[in-house]
């Protein structure tokens, strides 16, 4: 794998994470429990999709085959997507959506903070822009995890169930493969494993305050970063891509 191939792979991972999570979160639009949350979720989705445009735009540039961010988003098949499995998990109830967001936001804010030191200026600039938004997302999702976890018996039970469900999917965020090692060596991005300790600390602090118990199992569901996805991704892509697939090049 050449440096640019690894760089392209890394950029797809960043862009696909925000694209798929952004799409998932946008599914709440018009369905949230209260209006304020509907607006908050829609705005979070917008930020993530805006970040996707920057990551996938740069990915297309690095690849050098003339593919735009839109081409990459709308015209790739499931096995070419590089997002972690966590972000394609179904929304479930509001608690599951917020828990998934929190676990992701904690990783995302750490990752972006490190990427601001990237040896590639374009990566550092995108990270600087996105990290402001991610910090705001984390503030909100952490706050809600505490309020719901340390809330009523019902909300506590739902948040604990959400944590138990999502937990085995968080390990993939910290796995390193050949592409990760190559971009880390080039100073483009940190080795994902190097974020684990700080993430553990941050997440443990919030979950403890939320009176939630961290699951003990060490099993890690993985595959998304290499293109092996759960069945959920296919449904997301079917909805997200059908228009460009049915009417190639359509604009409005």
């Amino acid at each position: 794998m050449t440096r640019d191939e690894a760089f392209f792979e890394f950029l797809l991972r960043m862009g696909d994470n925000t694209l798929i999570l952004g799409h998932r979160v946008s599914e709440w639009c018009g369905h949230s429990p209260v209006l304020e949350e509907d607006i908050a979720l829609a705005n979070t989705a917008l930020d993530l999709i805006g970040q996707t445009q920057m990551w996938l735009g740069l990915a297309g540039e690095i690849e050098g085959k003339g593919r735009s961010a839109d081409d990459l988003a709308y015209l790739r098949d499931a096995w070419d997507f590089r997002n972690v499995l966590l972000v394609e998990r179904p929304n479930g109830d509001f608690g599951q959506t917020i828990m998934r967001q929190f676990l992701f936001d904690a990783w995302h804010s750490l990752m972006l903070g490190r990427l601001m030191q990237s040896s590639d200026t374009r990566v550092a600039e995108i990270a600087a822009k996105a990290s402001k938004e991610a910090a705001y997302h984390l503030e909100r999702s952490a706050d809600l995890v505490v309020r719901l976890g340390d809330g009523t018996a019902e909300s506590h039970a739902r948040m604990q169930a959400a944590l138990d469900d999502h937990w085995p999917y968080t390990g993939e965020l910290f796995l390193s493969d050949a592409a990760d090692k190559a971009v880390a060596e080039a100073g483009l991005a940190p080795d994902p494993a190097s974020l684990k300790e700080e993430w553990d600390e941050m997440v443990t602090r919030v979950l403890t305050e939320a009176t939630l118990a961290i699951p003990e199992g060490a099993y890690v569901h993985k595959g998304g970063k290499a293109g092996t996805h759960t069945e959920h991704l296919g449904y997301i892509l079917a909805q997200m891509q059908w228009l460009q697939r049915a009417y190639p090049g359509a604009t409005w």
Partner: protein
Amino acid sequence: MSTAALPSTDEVWTWLDQVPDPEIPVISVVDLGIVRGVEWQDDTLVVHVTPTYSGCPATTLINIEIEKALRDRGIEKLRIERRISPAWTTDWLSERGRQKLEDYGIAPPQAAGGPDHCPRCGSKNVEKVSQFGSTPCKAQWRCKDCLEPFDYFKCI
């Protein structure tokens, strides 16, 4: 237009200062701090614009409004460039822009992370309702004295 007749960049700034932000029309795109540079490259006018939030849906509309305003002034060769670095910050809101927001009923951003008083009645007895509001750049707050909800322009 011939090179001799090119308007000065100062003049262009004045024109841009009359282009309203589409979502908060009381302030201009210049007040908002998103116009980062205006320059002539030969006979082409280049305007550098930075997005407030990366997914802000108004970005495209803002570019269209800027282009339209400059075309109406007779600018023929024009390019709008997106500049993401340094990232937009609410520190770039002009003083006049902050005052206009306040007069309009939107609490201007504060370093403390929340408004220090209600833009309607001036009471300091305010509380946060939601971290997000009607646009990506705002949050929702409420005054506990006059009981009116209001928008707060997030500080980033």
